């Protein structure tokens, strides 16, 4: 076990996700649209001692859970990369599930109290006629087509080397654009009988999210451009990551801050103006999280609080989405385990009169001897500038990399390799370790 700066950086990144989740869950203990911990409580009972007790207990348990989970992340900083991935994946899955336990317990407790006391809000839904009639101008989701096109540039400048990066970035941009289109059509926020307040809050929220989506896509496009620059000219990968991720994180933090401020304002107005005329839909929300309503034809359902969207599990497509999400979630630690396992497998190099064959899990390279122009032996591993496509763990280095001395090459060696062969063919240079 030894301390690794990379593992520390990644652990802090993962832990910041836990911190975000903790802040958001803590925020669930505040009344928004008469809803607290996913349960609708009529205004007249919101200051009841029994409710306050449940909320206090929730906050305390959540804090203890958060501290324990944070402490459990520390050992990850001392693990080698493949084991780190395995550990952090399990930690991440456990963290997501365990942090929800206090919420679910609080939700069930409040529902029980509500049923025992016979508190029931009206099954009514409100819309502001004037707000519904106006067309709120927000930046169009189609602005993201510009970053989408830019993200495909590496494909033309770097040829097949960048196809994974280009398609991943373009796919992410496309997904964010679809999400933007969905969120753009979501229902207006009605928190007051005064139309101007409803218009102002709905407009601000929609604009913030529109700018956030387009901004994120712009940064993704910037990443693609910087990637091309880093391959074509000298550029530190660290500088590249800072240039891209720092503004993205700043943008996200800014949007989250505004969103929380808006939620606070909405809660204030709801309490002041709307009284109990907020619909009580608790029967359709299981554990305050999962929506199941066979009478609702909609597939995508906006969350009752905030800007997120969920699916109606009563619809067949909703079931498919939920099961797929659960499977991906369960697969996370297995993926970490797989990387850890493959890191232990030997990297085999066979040199015969016919060909050089490099095998690790599968045959990675099969270079016929007749295509080889020269083979030189070097004793030290090459200096890597950028990984283009491939893997670089603590032990395994394979794939397409940009190297200091040889430029763009195909490499295949493990950390404990003693000798390195520089194999040149007409169009490719290979660095193979044995």
């Amino acid at each position, binding site marked *: 076990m030894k301390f690794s700066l990379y593992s520390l950086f990644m652990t802090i990144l993962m832990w910041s996700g836990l911190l975000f989740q903790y802040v958001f869950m803590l925020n669930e203990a505040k009344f928004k649209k008469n809803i607290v911990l996913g349960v609708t409580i009529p205004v007249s009972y919101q200051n009841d001692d029994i409710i306050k007790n449940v909320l206090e207990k929730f906050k305390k348990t959540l804090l203890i859970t958060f501290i324990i989970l944070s402490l459990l992340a520390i050992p990850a900083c001392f693990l080698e990369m493949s084991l780190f991935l395995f550990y952090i994946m399990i930690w991440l899955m456990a963290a997501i599930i365990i942090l929800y336990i206090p919420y679910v317990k609080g939700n069930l407790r409040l529902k029980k109290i509500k049923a025992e006391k016979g508190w029931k809000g*009206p*099954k*009514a*839904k*409100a*819309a*502001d*006629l*004037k*707000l*519904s*009639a106006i067309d709120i101008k927000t930046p169009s989701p189609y602005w993201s087509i510009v970053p989408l096109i830019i993200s495909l540039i590496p494909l033309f400048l770097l040829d097949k080397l960048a196809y994974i990066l280009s398609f991943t970035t373009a796919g992410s941009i496309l997904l964010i654009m679809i999400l933007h289109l969905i969120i753009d*059509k*979501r*229902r*207006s926020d*009605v928190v007051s*009988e005064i*139309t101007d307040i409803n218009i102002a809050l709905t407009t601000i929220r929609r604009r913030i999210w529109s700018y956030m989506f387009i901004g994120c896509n712009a940064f993704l496009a910037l990443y693609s451009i910087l990637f091309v620059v880093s391959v074509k000219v000298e550029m530190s990968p660290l500088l590249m990551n800072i240039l891209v991720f720092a503004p993205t994180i700043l943008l996200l933090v800014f949007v989250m801050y505004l969103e929380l401020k808006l939620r606070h304002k909405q809660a204030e107005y709801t309490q002041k103006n709307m009284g109990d*005329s907020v*619909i009580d839909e608790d029967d359709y929300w299981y554990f305050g999280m999962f929506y199941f309503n066979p009478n*609702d*034809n*909609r597939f995508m359902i906006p969350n009752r609080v905030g800007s997120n969207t969920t699916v109606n599990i009563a619809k067949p497509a909703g079931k498919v989405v939920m099961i797929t999400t659960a499977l991906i979630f369960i697969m996370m630690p297995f993926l970490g385990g797989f990387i850890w396992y493959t890191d232990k497998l030997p990297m085999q190099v066979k040199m015969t009169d016919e060909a050089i064959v490099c095998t690790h899990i599968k045959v990675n390279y099969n270079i016929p001897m007749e295509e080889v122009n020269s083979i030189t032996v070097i004793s030290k591993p090459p200096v890597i500038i950028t990984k283009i496509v491939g893997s670089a763990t603590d032990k395994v280095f394979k794939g397409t990399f940009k190297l200091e001395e040889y430029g763009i090459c195909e490499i295949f060696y493990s950390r404990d390799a003693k000798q390195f062969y520089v194999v040149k063919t007409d169009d490719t240079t290979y660095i193979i370790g044995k």
Partner: protein
Amino acid sequence: MLICIDYESETPIYLQIRNQIVMGIADGELSEGEKLPTIRSLANDLGVNMMTVSKAYQLLKAESFIYGDRRNGVTVKKPPESPKSLSTQSLENLKLVATDAKLAGLSLEDFILTCKSIYEKEDAQ
């Protein structure tokens, strides 16, 4: 102006929408020439089927409270000056209310007094 849909009410949702728009016109909250939301927008904001809103708008059009079409949207119409008579739908509703009052044991005088009080209250608004 807020439109509140009560999902537990016996009154169909399209009638609840229609009634609240009519009340909005009577109260002056909706004035002549004011644009109403599109069917899609109102259905989305209320979380109801588009057919439900469409049915409410058709009824309002038939009763001459609104005018317009799919392309240009619907607009609040000037309330009819003459003939000063109730629509068929309102007459039906009034008949139902009068029958309810009779079954509840209300005398004709008391019923008229209640109606008068409601009318005066609306007029004052």
